[in-house]
């Protein structure tokens, strides 16, 4: 029998970026909030020994323990999905702060085109430009409408950057100046400027200078130590929920965080949710937490899986294309990249920061003409200097031996003589890319694992080749003596690390027929349930998702406060 606790105003499931933001906004607004986090607590002091590539970068110390829960994967519906037994393609964050702890801090705004991709593509190229099985959708909200929330997120996190010359209109400049430019980045800027492209500094949550945000939180400047992605920041310089929004919520006295609390079902009655059932993983006891409002703020897989396990919303059916929960799973096309080898120069490749880099958006969104191209959209191209840690970074010229004397010599020689320029390709949604519950494999509680069905399409193969070519041209202009570029994308595999930008499954839109939530991340089918995060992206853009997740979380918080006073679907 589950122990039933007293009712709270709001219960939040997952305390990462989305959960932290919503907790801070709602508690400031006077609501009592309980945050349930399945992982452990985390604090800056935990990162005393963080410069340990093996522990964090290779053995995934900050990631979810896959022995307890993973996902299953298959390329298409004809084959059997099998569990992701070890980490590879993407990493699942765990603990207080979630993926907001181990991220790099690259904080973009999506392009105006991204939010209206379907209508704008048809408007410019006609209906036939979109293949019949490509299920991209407008978001039901425009860039201009979302702009104030981007602004809010950037001010809270202290994003360091300069204006993207090809981006959407901004109401304010970035709150802190851009990061320091390294010699490799200067080379990229000179080369792309010469090529008549539009370079700009990567917007960074690593903090270029000491910053105090509107909530009164002060953080130190980044030290360029080269340990961001997969690591926590020992300075608190990298914006993460634990050093920004969570302390603000806690200070109100209205936020109670319960770690080691894994939510397993959303409870509902008719078209209202009534709370959640969770297991205290330290005791194994089942506990019921009633609430007026439930907010799902977990990683994509957690949000979608909870909806499906709880029987909320209509599950997506790929054979008919009807239903919404699990629909439009998308990813990122990250392999469109090139490596340049410089014989005469060395760079401080060991130094860097997660969001230290320069970008161009000339080949992103619809910033270029696609009339004669076999794909839509594109991706941002960047040179980033995140710190080339030695176990996982051993660039050698393609075709040369991968072990033995020549390998050793090359890998030592090029450790500080190779630079990569990479494309972050967008990922369109397709009718046969989706999430549902696995019929065979279970987690440690006996609940079904999330099953993902996904592969790359012609669109992705064309896009990756195109971006890799552009990256190669830039490296040549930068003076590389030898450039290796991706030749063929190949099938999607879950083994090689690509990107932790999984999206969709509880998508945002303008109609309950085609989407799960409205532009306030409010469930069409249950108005006191909000589902916040990258699960609401109808397809993925050519950027890192966190800036948009943050903006959507601020908007959702506003929606929840409106709902609290007025009820019904928030207009």
């Amino acid at each position, binding site marked *: 029998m589950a122990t039933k606790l007293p009712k709270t105003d709001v219960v939040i499931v997952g305390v990462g970026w989305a959960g932290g933001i919503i907790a801070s906004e709602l508690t400031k607004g006077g609501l009592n909030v309980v945050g349930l986090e399945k992982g452990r607590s985390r604090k800056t002091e935990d990162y005393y020994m963080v410069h*340990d590539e093996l522990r964090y970068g*290779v053995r995934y110390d900050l990631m979810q323990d896959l022995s307890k829960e993973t996902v299953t994967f298959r390329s298409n519906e004809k084959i059997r999905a099998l569990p992701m037994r070890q980490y590879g393609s993407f990493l699942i964050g765990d603990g207080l702060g979630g993926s907001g702890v181990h991220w790099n801090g690259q904080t973009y705004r999506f392009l105006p085109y991204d939010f209206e991709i379907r209508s704008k593509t048809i408007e410019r190229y006609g209906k036939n430009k979109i293949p019949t099985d490509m299920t991209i959708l407008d978001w039901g909200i425009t860039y201009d409408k979302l702009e104030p929330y981007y602004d809010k997120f950037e001010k809270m996190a202290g994003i360091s950057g300069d204006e993207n010359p090809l981006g959407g209109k901004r109401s304010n400049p970035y709150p802190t100046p851009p990061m320091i430019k390294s010699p490799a980045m200067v080379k990229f800027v000179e080369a792309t400027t010469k090529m008549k492209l539009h370079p700009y500094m990567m917007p960074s949550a690593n903090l270029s200078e000491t910053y105090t945000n509107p909530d009164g939180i002060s953080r130190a400047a980044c030290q360029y130590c080269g340990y961001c992605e997969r690591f926590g920041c020992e*300075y608190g310089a990298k914006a993460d929920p634990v050093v920004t929004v969570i302390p603000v919520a806690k200070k109100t006295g209205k936020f109670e965080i319960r770690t080691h609390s894994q939510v397993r079902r959303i409870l509902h009655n008719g078209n209202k949710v009534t709370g959640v059932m969770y297991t205290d993983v330290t005791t194994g006891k089942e506990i019921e937490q009633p609430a007026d409002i439930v907010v799902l703020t977990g990683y994509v897989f957690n949000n979608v899986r909870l909806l499906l396990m709880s029987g909320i919303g209509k599950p997506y059916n790929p054979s008919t294309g009807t239903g919404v929960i699990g629909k439009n799973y998308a990813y990122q096309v990250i392999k469109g990249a090139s490596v340049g080898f410089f014989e005469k120069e*060395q760079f401080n490749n*060991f130094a*860097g920061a997660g969001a230290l880099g320069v970008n161009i958006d000339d080949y992103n969104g619809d910033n270029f003409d696609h009339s004669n191209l076999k794909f839509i959209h594109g991706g941002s191209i960047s040179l980033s200097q995140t710190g080339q840690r030695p176990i996982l970074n051993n660039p050698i010229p393609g075709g040369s031996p991968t072990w033995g004397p020549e390998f050793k010599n090359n890998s030592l020689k090029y450790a500080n003589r190779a630079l990569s320029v990479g494309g972050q390709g967008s990922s369109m949604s397709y009718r046969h890319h989706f999430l549902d519950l696995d019929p*065979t494999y279970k987690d440690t509680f006996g609940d079904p694992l999330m099953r993902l069905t996904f592969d790359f399409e012609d669109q992705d193969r064309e896009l990756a080749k195109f971006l890799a070519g552009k990256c190669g041209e830039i490296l040549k202009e930068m003076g590389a003596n030898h450039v290796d570029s991706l030749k063929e994308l190949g099938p999607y595999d879950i083994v090689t690390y690509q990107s932790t930008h999984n999206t969709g499954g509880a998508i945002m839109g303008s109609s309950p027929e085609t989407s799960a939530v409205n532009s306030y991340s409010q469930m069409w089918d249950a108005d006191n349930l909000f589902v916040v995060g990258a699960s609401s992206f109808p397809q993925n853009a050519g950027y890192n998702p966190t800036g948009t997740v943050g903006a959507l979380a601020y908007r959702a918080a506003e929606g929840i406060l409106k709902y609290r006073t007025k009820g019904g679907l928030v207009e």
Partner: protein
Amino acid sequence: MENNDEHKEPAKQDVQEPSRRRFLVNAGFAIGGVVVGGALGSIIGRKAKEPAAPEPAPTEEKPAVPANYNRALMFFNQEQFSIVDAATERIFPKDANGPGAKELGVAFFIDHQLAGDYGFNGREYMSPPYFKGEKVQGYQGHLKRREMYDIALQEMENYSQAQFQKGFSQLAGEQQDEVLKAFEEDAVEITTISPSGFFKILRSNTLEGVYSDPLYGGNANMDGWRMRNYPGNQMSFTSIIDKDFKTIAPSSLQDHMAAK
């Protein structure tokens, strides 16, 4: 090398010290005027210094460097150790750049890793049922890494005996390469494990042993890092991030402990 710097070993003074002072000023975040210490801040704030363990009484043969008690085996038997020691040396050999896997202690590193969590696949999904999957679905076997090593090392030994009538560690270097290549290219018939799958793991584990912090038993004397001018654990690169390439003497996590 295009090292333009006049000083060869400027690291500690130029890079570490100023950043350390800046760290004391900057570390931590504040809420409502209360500064919460960063990871090091709390340590630095500590006053009481417990007296360190008493120095061993000086003897006449006291070595300059304390004995490395880490260099013993937790998992491999002697034969397995010598195979891994020899094989990893072929993957990352000693050359004019500096030591190879053997001197760096890579086989000790692998032994220690297999004795723990990693060898038991402790944080990986190992629940049944097991099915043969597509390549893109990743490892689907039921064997743990330590079991895989047990089998693979025996198979390497068998293959060496069959081809050259000698155990792997007794073979000439070129013959050892032939054995490794046969595994890499799945030219060995084994029913229990994938030879190429094992070779990939052995290669990854070799690089891990060369480049992980010396605390794990490899990368002896930080020479793995030194060979490629990787400075290891440093508090800050703010003073060089916009500068031309600079060689910085490496520092390990143990140096960090000494920051008390």
